[in-house]
């Protein structure tokens, strides 16, 4: 009994390890989507950062509590005006091509991210404030920003902003996409498109972050990173042990995984803005806050999640997922399911006429909600919105789910031609609120006028709050400001929040110490080892 209790306190992979890590061997990892480029500076989609985490190091690290610690930078200072960051670098780091890591590499990487030719849509977007880097000596990098940006260290901890070898970055973008070079515990040795990426151990690795469980080279000789898009096939491959770890365990298989003694599940939410439908405030009917609140309260998300995702996904608890730094749990019930209140609000707003099926209208105009559903939205997500359609229909919303191609869906997004657009944003900083709700992200940031602020909120008090939160490094001050920002957002009913994005790994008994790093809840195989 005592033994059982004490082992229950450890996490699953440690229990199963049953001994010291063994060096050597190959771990086969299978995921659903293949990156289009292995350099995470280019584009910047989640599959890229998952692979990049294995072969790139970052300037700073982030721990489970959101605290920033050293990594390739030993220490740093921030100027009083918040615009100059001086990094003191490790002097013992080499890239896997033998090149030494110096301040010139910091400069080359930041320059690379903001260079339009790189076509960086994530890393580049996070460092828009970047002006330039001075390199007074090899171990000092002085980074200049155009305005204070307290989230700078947080985004630097993300794998998207991983540090690559300057000589490799000098090659053409497309060449670097195929064979990027980092200083991480593994190096990319092969990429068979549509099949797998092969990574091999970097034997000289001596600079793991303090968040890791060991120091020195990784235990694994090799990682075979496979792409198996079909969920049932991926899960079957895990069950018969032909792969050691899978990512994106299908929710319908999770119960089977829990019953199978050979398997362990590792599930953790990702930081950022949870999966949601953004309500377009720029046109009727959602230009009226009463109608927005009515819509949000008419959707039985808990019921929908229980039936569509077999109770495996939980309702998001605010505009930030709970694992995001400066998340506040105070507003998680601000928009609970309440059809009575929804009916009352719609009556107040004048949507009082009802047709034979109970759908409302006002002056002959139906209470229609147009929701474009892009082709890449999976079947489960569609079912979820069908449930929203059903429960919102009960209070009189005529929810129209409109299947379109992905490019058409982004074009409609750009033209504000929707009432609800499906979105999420993974990032490790509460500054995501500024991107998703700030006025500066209303404009034509993307192609076809695509904007990140999908609800179209324009609120000076909110802008001011999130801007102020970037001007100070003081944690208590930032916490207070981000709480205020979350409060402002919660009262506006701008998103119908569904569930937080999550990383869901299935681990076969042959794999041990597979972890999720905290900055984006991305797999790290640095501490992992295999017994087979």
């Amino acid at each position, binding site marked *: 009994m005592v033994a059982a209790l004490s082992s229950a306190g450890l996490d699953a992979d440690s229990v199963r390890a049953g001994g010291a890590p063994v060096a050597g061997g190959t771990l086969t990892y299978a995921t659903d989507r293949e990156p289009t480029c292995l350099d995470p500076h280019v584009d910047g989609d989640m599959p890229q950062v998952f692979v990049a985490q294995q072969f790139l190091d970052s300037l700073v690290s982030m721990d489970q509590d959101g605290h920033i610690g050293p990594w390739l930078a030993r220490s740093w200072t921030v100027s009083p005006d918040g615009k100059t960051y001086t990094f003191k670098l490790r002097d013992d780091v080499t890239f896997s091509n033998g090149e030494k890591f110096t301040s010139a590499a910091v400069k080359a990487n930041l320059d690379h991210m903001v260079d339009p030719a790189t076509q960086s849509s994530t890393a580049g977007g996070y460092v828009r404030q970047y002006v330039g880097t001075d390199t007074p000596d090899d171990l000092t990098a002085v980074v200049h920003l155009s305005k204070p940006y307290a989230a700078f260290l947080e985004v630097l901890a993300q794998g998207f902003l991983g540090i690559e070898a300057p000589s490799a970055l000098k090659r053409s973008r497309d060449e670097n996409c195929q064979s990027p070079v980092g200083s991480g515990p593994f190096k990319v040795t092969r990429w068979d498109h549509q099949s797998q990426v092969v990574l091999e151990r970097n034997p000289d690795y001596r600079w793991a972050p303090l968040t890791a469980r060991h120091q020195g080279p990784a235990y694994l000789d090799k990682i075979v990173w496979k792409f198996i898009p079909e969920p049932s096939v991926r899960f*079957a491959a895990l069950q018969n042990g032909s792969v050691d770890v899978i990512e994106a365990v299908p929710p319908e298989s999770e119960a089977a995984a829990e019953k199978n003694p050979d398997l362990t599940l590792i599930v953790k939410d990702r930081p950022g803005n949870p999966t949601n439908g953004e309500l377009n405030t720029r046109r009727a009917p959602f230009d009226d806050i009463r109608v927005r609140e009515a819509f949000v309260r008419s959707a039985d998300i808990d019921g929908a999640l229980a039936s569509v995702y077999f109770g495996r996904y939980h309702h998001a608890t605010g505009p930030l997922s709970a694992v995001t730094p400066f998340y506040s749990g105070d507003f998680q019930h601000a928009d609970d399911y309440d059809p009575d209140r929804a009916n009352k609000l719609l009556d107040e707003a004048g949507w009082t006429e009802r047709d034979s099926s109970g759908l409302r209208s006002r002056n002959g105009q139906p209470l229609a909600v147009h929701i474009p559903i892009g082709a890449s939205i999976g079947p489960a997500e569609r079912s979820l919105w069908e449930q929203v359609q059903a429960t919102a229909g009960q209070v009189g919303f005529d929810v129209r789910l409109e299947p379109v191609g992905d490019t058409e869906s982004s074009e409609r997004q750009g033209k504000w031609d929707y009432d609800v657009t499906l979105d999420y944003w993974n990032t490790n900083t509460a500054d995501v609120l500024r991107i998703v709700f700030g006025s500066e992200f209303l404009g034509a940031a993307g192609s076809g006028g695509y904007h990140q602020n999908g609800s179209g909120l324009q609120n000076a008090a909110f802008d001011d709050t999130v801007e102020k939160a970037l001007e100070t490094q003081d944690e208590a001050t930032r916490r207070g400001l981000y709480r205020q920002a979350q409060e402002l957002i919660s009262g506006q009913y701008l998103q119908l929040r569904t569930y937080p994005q999550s990383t869901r790994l299935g681990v076969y008994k042959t794999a041990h110490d597979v972890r999720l790093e905290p900055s984006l809840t991305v797999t790290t195989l640095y501490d992992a080892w295999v017994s087979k």
Partner: protein
Amino acid sequence: MSAASGREPRPPQTRRLRRLAQRLLLRAGGGGLVLLASATVTFFALHLTPGDPVRALLGGPTSNPTPETIAAAVKEFGLDQPLLTQYAIYIGRLLRGDFGVSFSQHLPVADVIAEQVWPTLQLTAASLLVAWVLALVSVLGTTRRGRWVSGLGSAIETVSASLPQFWLGIVLLAVFSFGLRLFPPEGNGGLVSLVLPTLALAVPLAGFLAQVMRESLELALDQPFILSARMRGLGDWPVRWRHALRHAVLPGVSLSAWAVGSLIGNSVLVELIFSRQGLGRQLYQAVSLQDMPLTIGITLFVTLVYIVTSILVDALYVVVDPRIEAGRT
């Protein structure tokens, strides 16, 4: 010399070759036109698809590109030019053999095709072969073998022909991979991993081929020369093999060019289900990302395979039944 072809006079060898060369040239010219038409249709079809490919190629819905980044991408892929200019530039490049660089793969289109073509051709060839074997076994084994056997054979063929490949793929996976664990569920790991995807493609095709061949075989078995062969004392199998088979396979041969095209088309689903590397899966991704150069490149390649196959089938047809050659002069 079989009874059927022995009756026809043979044209002199040189005339025959010249005619063959003429026909090949004509076919090649026609093939070129088909390729051009295929490139044109694909180009405009992709442009008529609503939406802007730039967004897709810059990392999808969760990305945060700056206006400069978007401008750079638009310029790099020439998307700021008028449509007809884009078309002219594109066809000009194609004529010079330059297939361009894939938007989504960051690789030359020719390299992407070269990397993906072998697994797909393997799958297609294996499926065609297996389909033929299955069809021949069914047709030769059951046609005119009494009402029950014949009817059963015919029924199995009809059912097979109507099975959707993706459904069959999932059933095969569920039974032989998830259930019995006889075959790996995914990948390109040699012959074993080729079995299930091949069956998923081959069984419906076999049903279709067999239906067509069965009818011809029935007709052939009613011919007087079969009766005369039987009267000479030949057994049932030799009659079928040596005399009737040639007639039965002819429609199958002419269907094979179409079959290759349809196999490559259906490989899209089968490659997705079995997570196989290949052109089909690549084409699916290219279309959904509006990756113009790659979509057109793969379409052209598949068209080319189709054209080459139909020329080969044409030649094979003449070998199987020399009357065709004589009849066309």
